[in-house]
């Protein structure tokens, strides 16, 4: 087998290395911390960059929440920090309001929830949970991070150009995004946005190809696909979705660059802007929407699937129970992967797309609710009769399930073309996607951080601060987004600078104040997390080998990081990762590396399906030890 051959080669290479007692590597500061090719270090780089971007995006959200809550009040401090250009007299200007909304969305969706989530945990967990020394191509992995970093820098840089950052919404619909005359953010800021996106897509693609090839080729001995933890399944399918959809965004972006800079008419037609008749004819703004959402919709699954994978692992570990319906979980992920490509049109029901197409997209969209429902019910069944350990990670996982349900259910409204007529582009949509992909994915990410922090930094985070962080964020998020549904139903459109101009929106002004306070409180709660995170890197309690008593392979690797992950031979795998609380065994977990021969008292005949010899041996043993043998109620 090819994978075994590679594996052996890597093993022998590693033996050489450690024979020379690390002197072989000659790591300098630059190769260790900056241009590192070690997947664990790259994971940390992705995570910390992601957190930094999340903080920036969160501050932006507080800025526009201030504007929404107190549209008539001035905050002189804003002028001090943002300058007269954007916040004259301490009031955010409409142009800048749209800019911060746009950059908030872009950063959160792409930099935090795609790179920060997938980048961090795919890099950390794929080699460690599969038993590989590193990624298939450590060098490309490094390139992937640095392209991402560059794209972050360019996006941040767009705040410092004279015409301001891109401000046509994170979906940058042309013609608004193509005409600097229509909005100043569509000048240099938009060019930087587009460049940043191209770099980001390159980074995401390189990363995804790396993840796929690692998962397919570099699993350790015994780790067949059906023994992989659900995290890996999720990362694998996420990477596939990314590889198939991200290039489409690049094509869309390139056409937009042509339209903006070279006078083509892919998206522009019949436009009179600022009294000037433009020559462009024959293009269609709807084309951009098709291309954008062909990535954009799979993108939301790129965001949520890793989070679902992470929580599957965390919920199983902390419920001390096997994840319920492992196969169903995998098949529902596969179902979501496939369906994610044929539902993009539900973003376009009222854009002038042929209404018949709208009907078709509605059918495919509502079908995707079925695998999502299966996943939810399986989580509930996993918790049922468990022995739950509420670590902060577990709380965040439960929070994710709650958000996934709440946000998923409102998706049934929006996926319905008839209902979407009245809800499209209102606060209902804002509430929906913030719950289902914003909060849920962020909770998945935080859940992963709390759970794998010992693996990342070799130390533990403070649990109490974790609890404080969870409760403030969880309650805060609901208080922020739940009332928004009602505003949306009443017909308040999103991306409105102020609610003051329409009589019917007046009654929502107080709600806006309430939401803003909830947002501020949950933003402040993030300081508990940041403190906990950075303080624990240096002063946290030292982590034991397997702090959560988990089955998966990464907890067999030494706490102190070393290049190549395991000293000596890579452990081989004998069982699936979810043998928790198996009847007849003296502990409530059996690591994947434990062979069945050491757990005769707890083996089930079911474990040896398709291996008559092993079944026979087990039956023999059972007969001999009949009295002490636990009789399972259900197999």
């Amino acid at each position, binding site marked *: 087998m090819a994978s075994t051959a590679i594996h052996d080669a890597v093993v022998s290479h590693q033996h050489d290395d450690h024979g020379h007692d690390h002197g072989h590597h000659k790591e300098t500061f630059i190769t260790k911390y900056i241009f590192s090719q070690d997947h664990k270090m790259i994971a940390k780089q992705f995570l910390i960059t992601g957190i930094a971007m999340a903080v920036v995006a969160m501050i932006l959200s507080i800025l526009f929440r201030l504007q929404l809550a107190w549209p008539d009040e001035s905050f002189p401090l804003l002028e001090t920090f943002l300058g007269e250009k954007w916040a004259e007299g301490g009031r955010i200007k409409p142009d800048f309001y749209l800019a911060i909304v746009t950059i908030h969305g872009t950063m959160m969706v792409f930099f935090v929830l795609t790179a920060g989530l997938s980048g961090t945990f795919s890099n950390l967990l794929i080699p460690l949970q599969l038993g590989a020394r590193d990624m298939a191509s450590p060098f490309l992995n490094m390139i992937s991070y640095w392209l991402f970093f560059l794209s972050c820098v360019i996006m941040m840089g767009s705040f410092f150009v004279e015409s301001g950052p891109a401000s046509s919404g994170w979906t940058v619909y042309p013609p608004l995004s193509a005409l600097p005359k229509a909005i100043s953010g569509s000048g240099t800021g938009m060019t930087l946005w587009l460049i940043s996106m191209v770099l980001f897509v390159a980074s995401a693609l390189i990363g995804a190809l790396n993840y796929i090839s690692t998962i397919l080729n570099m699993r350790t001995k015994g780790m067949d696909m059906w023994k992989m933890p659900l995290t890996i399944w999720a990362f694998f399918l996420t990477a596939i979705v990314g590889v198939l959809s991200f290039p489409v965004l690049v094509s869309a972006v390139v056409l937009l660059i042509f339209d903006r800079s070279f006078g083509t008419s892919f998206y522009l037609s019949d436009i009179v802007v600022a009294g000037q008749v433009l020559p462009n004819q024959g293009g269609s703004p709807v084309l951009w929407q098709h291309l954008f959402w062909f990535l954009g919709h799979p993108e939301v699954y790129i965001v949520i699937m890793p989070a679902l994978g992470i929580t599957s692992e965390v919920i199983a570990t902390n419920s001390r129970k096997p994840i319920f319906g492992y196969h169903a979980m995998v098949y529902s992920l596969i179902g979501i992967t496939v369906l994610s490509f044929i539902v993009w049109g539900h973003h376009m029901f009222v854009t002038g797309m042929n209404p018949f197409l709208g009907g078709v997209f509605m059918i495919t969209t509502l079908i995707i609710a079925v695998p999502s429902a299966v996943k939810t019910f399986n989580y509930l069944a996993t918790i049922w009769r468990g022995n739950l350990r509420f670590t902060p990670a577990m709380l965040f996982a439960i929070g994710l399930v709650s958000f996934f349900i709440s946000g998923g259910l409102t998706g049934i409204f929006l996926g319905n073309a008839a209902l979407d007529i009245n809800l499209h582009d209102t606060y209902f949509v804002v509430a929906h996607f913030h719950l289902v992909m914003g909060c849920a994915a962020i909770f998945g990410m935080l859940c992963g951080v709390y759970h794998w922090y010992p693996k990342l930094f070799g130390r533990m985070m403070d649990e109490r601060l974790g609890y404080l962080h969870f409760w403030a964020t969880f309650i805060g998020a609901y208080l922020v987004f739940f009332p928004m549904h009602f505003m949306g139903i009443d017909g308040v459109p999103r991306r*409105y600078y102020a609610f003051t101009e329409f009589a019917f929106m007046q009654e929502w002004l107080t709600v806006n104040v309430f939401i803003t306070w909830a947002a501020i409180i949950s933003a402040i709660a993030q300081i508990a997390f940041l403190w906990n995170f950075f303080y624990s890197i240096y002063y946290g309690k030292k982590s034991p080998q397997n702090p959560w008593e988990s089955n998966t392979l990464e907890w067999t690797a030494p706490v102190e990081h070393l290049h190549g992950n395991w000293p000596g031979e890579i452990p081989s795998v004998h069982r699936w990762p979810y043998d928790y609380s198996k009847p007849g065994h003296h502990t409530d977990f059996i690591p994947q590396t434990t062979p069945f021969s050491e757990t005769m008292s707890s083996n089930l005949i079911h474990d040896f399906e398709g291996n008559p010899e092993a079944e026979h041996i087990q039956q023999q043993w059972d007969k001999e030890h009949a009295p002490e043998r636990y009789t399972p109620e259900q197999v």
Partner: protein
Amino acid sequence: MRLREIFNIRTVAAILVICTLNVTNTVTFARVQDSTISSTTAAIDTAAKAGSIDLVPSSAPLISTAVDTVARYANMQPIVETKDYSESYKVATYYVLMFLLLCVFIAIIGKILKVHEISREMQGLKAAFNGRRIQGVFLGIFLLFGLYGVYWSYAVQGPMSLHESASEHGLDIDFMFNTTLVITTIVFILTHIALFGFSFQYRGSENRKAYFFPHNNSLERIWTIVPAIVLTVLVLLGFFTWRGITNVSAEDQKKAINIEVTGEQFKWSLRYAGFDNQIGNRNYKLTTPTNGLGIDFKDQKSWDDKLTSEIVIPVNKAVRIVINSKDVLHSFYLPDFRVQMNAVPGMPTTFQFTPRLTTAQMREKRNNPAYDYVLLCAKICGAGHYNMQAKVTVVSEAEYAAWLAKQPLYYNDDVKRELQLVENSKTEEINKMALNKNNTIK
């Protein structure tokens, strides 16, 4: 370890209390402040009594920096003399200090808990405070509060947002909406009761082992098939509602009143089709300051087109809106009528609907004599997006006819004069060209 010394709780607390006092003297929160401070000082005392935290004498430079900062803020007044922001700086400083005090308070609670736990441990007792187990109780409590919160939202904010539809197809949409709402609310409540209820009930204990339950095919089959059936019902219902709204027969289209709406940054222009009920052709290249919509006046259908400043439509009569955009994307959104369609430059879109309640009737129903239907822009279109509106009024058919008769024509004298000028200059140009030709021939 130096970092830890600097963040010594007692030092920080003392500094903060001093600073806060300083600031509050000038800010009008004095009374609230006093009680906060006394409680905080009490908490600090307790912490000190709990002892066993090794405290290092406070670091003097830190205090002076803090005082410096305060002093600097005080000195700032003359610098920003032109705009007197000193008050707001004080308020901001106050909030920052309050936040830091909160941090200290939290840190103290954390320390107390830790000390308590350590002392229990030293006495050989089991930890009284089992942080993890109690989280299960919190989740249970959250369930109760959450359910009440949902009930409250539905009861209070529900009526604020759900209003009777003013259009006929809107009734179908509302029926769909309510059906979906009932189904999803039931699922929402049940799954959350399960999620938090299980979390409460099965919170961990050392004495128990979880139930090994890796899969159960019949259960999984049930919860695949049941959602599939429910969704099929919703899909079918939704599909036919959607087709009913968007698929208007050619015959019905002819019966409807034609109105053209054109969005531009940041206003809506309206054009009524006039007596022939046909909207004249447009060509965006003809756009001039007088002919803002680029109407092609060579097309005779445009001669009777009427220019209006608001949408007035008769009740119980179908209206077909043709939606256009001059510059960027806009969205024609009438929440009361459950109508929305994007305005796309270069691609006219349409939406046909029938109003069923006049403005007067709606005012009565909503018990608000000032209520007006309104047209909004729902697609981000630039800085003025939040205020791109037009009034919509539904009246009886007679009132509508009277109103329409009073509206001016697009094909007015100014336009005619301009066209005449263009015509003249064209003929002139042709003459010139002819002359030139003659010259060259000569």
